[in-house]
């Protein structure tokens, strides 16, 4: 038995370095491919700062981050909540924050979880590879922060705040789902921004050219719609086509849009990402223990915190707040390993192609090529459904009662799996809203369509959001909820800009 790396709970920089080295070697042994790590030790106040900027290391100033900070501070100081042990940023090098209050065990856990788990996920998963560029994000954030503070100096804090508020309200609709942006550096971004400003202003004016045309009246009906195809990226549409915005306002929209795009993969891979990181901290730390690098006390402390991370309260528990992504992800990842190593008869029927295969390769494959929705559809096994005692309910407003339509039995597994996967489909979760038409020759009003899914209506805050949309567009805004060919509900915002 060799001497453990550490025996007390106090940490110091040498220890962290040693532990990181050992974990790094182990991770490489397991075939994890990572960006270099930048581990930063911070205090709890700094952690609260990091919290408030939604995990971005550098953010522009906005009151909503202040609101976040105040509420975190308030609950933390009153002991109502603890802070996360770590925050990790999808950048190259991968930045991970460790809190100075953590014990050495927790630091080890966090390094395994963030610096090797999340890190390899960021580097491997196809969504992150396609949609985000880890090496340029920090540069871009610096550019954004400087640009916005320059705008504040020039146009006043309130003017910038108004635009940002409106953009934030539409942030989820500022994402390209199909087209991949390509990365550019901050200087390049700045140079281009100037070109863009000039070009855009001309381009927009062209769309609105108002040279009178003879016999324009009867073309009204036959005139092609603008945009010719419905647009799902509303912020992009506004940036390019909104008639009244100044060029700096377009640039602010663009910044918010870019940041939304950067977070888009994270929203689609929560279960996988957390599951992957949890699976690897669990595997790596147990390996550490097996090889005698750490003591039994360490493993007890680790298990205690690991268990609370992956705890899943039942649907009727007061602590229930949806399915815990850590639990589901960890259960599925561990289950894939189990299916590879010790497949049962059931597994051979359900997963003929992976039962008995090399577990490391299979996991890597799963991590690289899926997002939450497809991952669940592909890999959720009957065993996990049984263990979590999943059941599916239907709440149909045309029926008086809620119906249980599948439970964890032979008949229900496939249905359950489909429903659960659907629950992680962003397309289902977020209302599908697209820019439908602009009254180019009329009152310049903007019409959007909400394509209803399962007859679900829009929520109460929709009129508020329309006001923000109105601010960005400058003319009347109409939103119709469309089911098939019928308009079920309409929202209008016709106030004049103040």
């Amino acid at each position, binding site marked *: 038995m060799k001497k453990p790396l550490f025996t007390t709970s106090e940490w110091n920089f040498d220890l962290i370095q040693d532990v990181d080295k050992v974990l790094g070697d182990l991770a490489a042994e397991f075939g994890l491919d990572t960006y*270099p*790590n930048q581990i930063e030790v911070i205090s709890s106040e700094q952690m609260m700062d990091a919290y408030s900027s939604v995990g971005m290391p550098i953010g522009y100033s906005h*009151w*909503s981050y202040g609101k976040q900070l105040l509420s975190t501070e308030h609950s933390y100081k009153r002991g109502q909540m603890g802070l996360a042990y770590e925050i990790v940023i999808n950048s190259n090098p991968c930045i991970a924050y460790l809190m100075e209050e953590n014990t050495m065990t927790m630091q080890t856990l966090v390094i395994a979880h963030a610096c090797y788990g999340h890190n390899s996920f960021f580097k491997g998963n196809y969504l992150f590879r396609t949609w985000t560029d880890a090496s340029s994000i920090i540069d871009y954030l610096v550019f954004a922060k400087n640009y916005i503070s320059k705008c504040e100096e020039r146009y006043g804090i309130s003017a910038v705040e108004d635009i940002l508020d409106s953009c934030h309200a539409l942030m989820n609709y500022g994402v390209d789902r199909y087209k991949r942006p390509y990365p550019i550096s901050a200087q390049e971004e700045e140079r281009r921004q100037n070109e863009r400003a000039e070009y855009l202003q001309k381009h927009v004016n062209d769309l609105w050219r108002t040279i009178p045309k003879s016999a324009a009246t009867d073309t009204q009906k036959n005139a092609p719609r603008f945009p010719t195809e419905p647009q799902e990226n509303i912020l992009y549409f506004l940036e390019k086509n909104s008639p009244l915005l100044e060029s700096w306002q377009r640039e602010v929209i663009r910044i918010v849009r870019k940041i939304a795009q950067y977070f888009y993969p994270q929203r689609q891979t929560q279960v996988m990402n957390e599951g992957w990181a949890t699976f690897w901290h669990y595997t790596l730390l147990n390996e550490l223990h097996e090889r005698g690098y750490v003591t039994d006390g360490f493993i007890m402390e680790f298990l205690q915190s690991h268990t609370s991370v992956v705890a899943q309260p039942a649907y009727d528990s007061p602590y229930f707040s949806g*399915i815990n992504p850590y639990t589901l992800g960890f259960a599925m990842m561990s289950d894939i390993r189990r299916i590879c190593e010790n497949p049962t008869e059931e597994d051979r029927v359900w997963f003929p192609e992976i039962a008995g295969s090399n577990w490391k390769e299979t996991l890597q494959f799963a991590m690289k090529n899926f997002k939450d929705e497809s991952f669940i559809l592909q890999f959720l096994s009957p065993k996990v459904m049984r263990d979590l005692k999943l059941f599916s309910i239907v709440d149909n407003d045309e029926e008086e009662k809620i119906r*249980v339509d599948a439970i964890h039995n032979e008949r229900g597994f496939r249905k359950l799996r489909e429903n659960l996967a659907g629950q992680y489909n962003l397309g289902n979760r977020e209302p599908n809203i697209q820019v439908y038409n602009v009254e180019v020759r009329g009152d310049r009003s903007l019409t959007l369509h909400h394509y209803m899914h399962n007859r679900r209506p829009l929520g109460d805050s929709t009129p508020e959001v329309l006001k923000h949309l109105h601010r960005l567009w400058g003319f009347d805004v109409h939103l119709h909820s469309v089911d098939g060919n019928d308009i079920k509900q309409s929202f209008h915002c016709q106030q004049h800009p103040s």
Partner: protein
Amino acid sequence: MSYIIDRRLNAKNKSAVNRQRFLRRYREQIQKAVSDAVNERSITDIDKGGKVSIPGRDINEPIIHHGQGGYNERVLPGNKQFSEGDKIARPQGGSGQGGGGKASDSGEGMDDFSFTLSQEEFLDFMFDGLELPNLIKRQLSGLEEFKTVRGGIANEGQPGRMNIVRSLRSANMRRLALSGGKRRQLQELNAELAELEKIPESARDLIRYREVLELIAKLERSISKIPWLDTFDLKYNLMIKQPVPRSKAVMFCIMDVSGSMDQATKDIAKRFFILLYLFLQRNYEKTEIVFIRHHTSAKEVDEDEFFHSRETGGTVVSSALQLMQEIIKDRYSPEQWNIYGAQASDGDNWGEDSDVCRDILVDDLLPGCQYFSYIEITNNEHQALWSVYESIQQQYPDVFALQHIRGVGDIYPVFRELFHKKVA
């Protein structure tokens, strides 16, 4: 390869600006929350920072999401008793389905947004927009305050104040001036040289040619010897001290502690004066405060005694005004001082004393006073003192104010009313 960095020594309030933005944006709501808090708090921690809540709906950031209704499927963990096909009654009070955690976005049932203000911020909000009215008498009071202002450019000064642009400009001028004649000669010689070089070497006047070359070399040497920067060139920003006129102000706090003031009334009066005291301490550091308490006779006391002593007796209001007048005569000449008075009483007074009060106020005090405020704390009918003071108020609407307080809840609003900033 990993890098490990200790960031703990970095600035920790990276988000402070965002916090300020939030406070700025919700100024009105926070101010309201603060004024509620002031009324609820006990006297001792009235000036502490602390928890404030503002309505959550005001600070909501709207996003588009699904509302209730339609066809929803949801997968839940922890099944204990259900089998396929079971029907369950909808839970009352907002369906938990669909929005999943969005319940709080939907209007009413929403919690307030609570957060903690520091003491500094709390007081800022508490006294925001308040000022001492008519603070006009200013004078040069000697040595205390100076402000440094820029006073042009000087030839001497400390290195830290060196004006680089001016220094270099003057060096440039000097160089040009000193080398002007030589440069002109140099130019002429260069032209001549060029002429000479056009002539083929055989026909050239070689003696002159050599002479010209020599002269050029000599001139260039002597131009390059002119120093680039001379001590003579250095210019400095001149800073001069200007004395600042300062307004001297004194506030007289007059509190009735007679027997008719019951404990609750005294408590209210004390709260009022504590607010006044905090306000002055915070916004007018150098303001002097004189505490006077009276029953049948008045007495000047210190702050501690003013707020804590428990003396009591009958009531003669004029005694306090008289004392105030004496103190003014003694120590605070109205020519030099901005004089303020704040009086709190339950309105109970000795028989004809109210008329005496009026005489003192109108004849002696008000002409020298910037502002005199009177608050009456009572739930009963007003007595003689109030009507006397009311008539004074009509005579001197600018410098005399009176307000009526019924309960604890009125204190802060009345306080704000008395000292709110008047837009000129």
